[in-house]
């Protein structure tokens, strides 16, 4: 490592070019499977099997929705993620607002439950919820998936919103009240716009967690199939290129949202 030389005494250890190259190698390792996934969506395979490179083609993009049950699984995933985003977004934001704003008896317990829900092993949450559904003979399907996704997303939304609420200046709300605004008007015109970035970030996190979830869904899905469950089910028989493309499109959408978000943040500041 070439850390010797100019002003060496002022520089922290391990600060050379070597570490920069190392960081890029780790990033390359992290991105490698994604690159392969994207690449093999363009693979000119003859059958359903997509195992070795046969040449470049766009034909699979034209046949994206040809596998009926895969398309249905993707639609299920999107619907469930949207519902989770809205329900967990609202319920989690309310909890985050309460925890960030008020001191009250029971806030400690709420914090502990939320920490437990965030750090609990997914398989334990999935298994215990299935235990409840089995005991009560609740039929498994679309709605039990929604219930489970809202359950594990609420805490993440609440923590995100709480962080935002804690940074806010309360005097603005007091000013609104002094100017004669009622509780609801103050909330709608002052509080909500101020916490909205937190609510939006939390809700989007809920969407991302939901659309990616496998373990808890695996336990509580019954016969309903989501995108990750469909992929799981076809591991043994081979993954068709359509899965690569759908993964690519979800990835591209995520990257676009992140980039737009960063650009808007830069413009604001």
């Amino acid at each position, binding site marked *: 490592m070439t*850390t010797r030389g100019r002003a060496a005494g002022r520089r922290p250890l391990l600060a050379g070019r070597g570490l920069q190259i190392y960081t890029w190698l780790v990033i390359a390792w992290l991105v490698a*499977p994604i690159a392969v996934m994207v690449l093999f969506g363009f693979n000119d395979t003859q059958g359903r099997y997509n*195992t*070795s490179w046969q040449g470049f083609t766009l034909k699979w993009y034209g046949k994206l929705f040809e596998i009926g049950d895969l398309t249905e699984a993707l639609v299920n995933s999107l619907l469930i993620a949207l519902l989770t985003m809205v329900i967990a977004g609202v*319920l989690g934001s309310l909890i985050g607002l309460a925890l960030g704003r008020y001191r009250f008896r029971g*806030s400690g317990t709420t914090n502990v439950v939320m920490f437990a829900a965030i750090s609990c092993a997914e*398989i334990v949450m999935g*298994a215990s919820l299935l235990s409840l559904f089995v005991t009560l003979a609740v039929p498994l399907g679309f709605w039990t998936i929604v219930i489970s996704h809202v359950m594990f997303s609420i805490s993440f939304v*609440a923590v995100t919103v709480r962080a935002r609420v804690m940074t806010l200046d309360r005097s603005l709300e007091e000013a609104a009240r002094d100017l004669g605004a009622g509780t609801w008007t103050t909330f709608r015109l002052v509080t909500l716009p101020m916490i909205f970035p937190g609510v939006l970030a939390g809700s989007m996190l809920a969407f991302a967690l939901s659309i990616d979830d496998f373990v808890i869904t695996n336990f509580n899905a019954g016969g309903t199939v989501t995108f990750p469950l469909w992929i799981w089910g076809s591991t043994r028989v081979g993954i068709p290129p359509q899965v690569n493309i759908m993964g690519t499109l*979800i990835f591209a959408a995520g990257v676009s949202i992140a980039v737009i978000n960063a650009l808007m943040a830069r413009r604001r500041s």
Partner: protein
Amino acid sequence: MSRRLRAALTPYALIFPGGIWLAIFFVVPMVVMLSLSLQSGSVEEGYAFAWNWHSYADGLSNYHDQIIRSVIYGLASTVIQIIIGFPVAYWIAFKGGKHKSLYLFLLLLPFLVSFVLRTISWQFMLSDNGILLGPLKSLGLLPEGFRVLATPYAVIGGLAYNFLPFMVLPMYVALERIDPRVLEAAQDLYASRFQTFLRVVLPLSLPGVFAGVLMTFVPATSDYVNASVLGGTNTTMIGNVIQNQYLVTQDYPTASALSFTLMALLLVGIFAYAKALGTEDVLEVAAR
């Protein structure tokens, strides 16, 4: 309603809907699972509650191999993540400059692809005659029978890969927070760069490492996706057993007893680790 009373009730009203959801679908199920694990009976005749602790004894005696293997894989992948991730977090925090958020974004890219799909992509890359091993074998650099899949290395590597960003982020946050003037002070007091690192940077980064371990050891130890996709019959983890017992054989008492054993094991592990680090209150650290 008086204004004061309303103000006192507001937080409870805000918490109520989400709190009820968590109570019914997170807290109550834990109790239900506990009672399920104490039932006796059979799949055909149904189960009844009987303070039956046999499921725990049976579960432990039949599946202790998988339990031990899960802990070893979980620990191994966590240690690998610390070793791989610390220099990355360190470099971004101290040398990332204007591009810190870009590097963090690149580290988070895997989360934009489904967990199952990422793991399957590794299976595809590592397959016996696939895009990595195939060319090496045809060049004669590797023996024909060489394989990565179905070995413990593949499973541990997959676990380390899948949870690495959860390890790097908290370490980055802790390192980022270190005031550069503290480092200057150490050097003004004639600490060598190595001493500065060992006695200033490393201790100050420990809360981040702690949070990272918390966020990666639990999912890694309880995972069954990596062991199923990348592993073979002799890399089965406890998660595979639980999943199979719940969804295939439907032996609920044994399955729930194993889930509880796993949960207890993880809790004990976390608290022992917190104690060893001298962290008085795990929740305190985690809440930050």
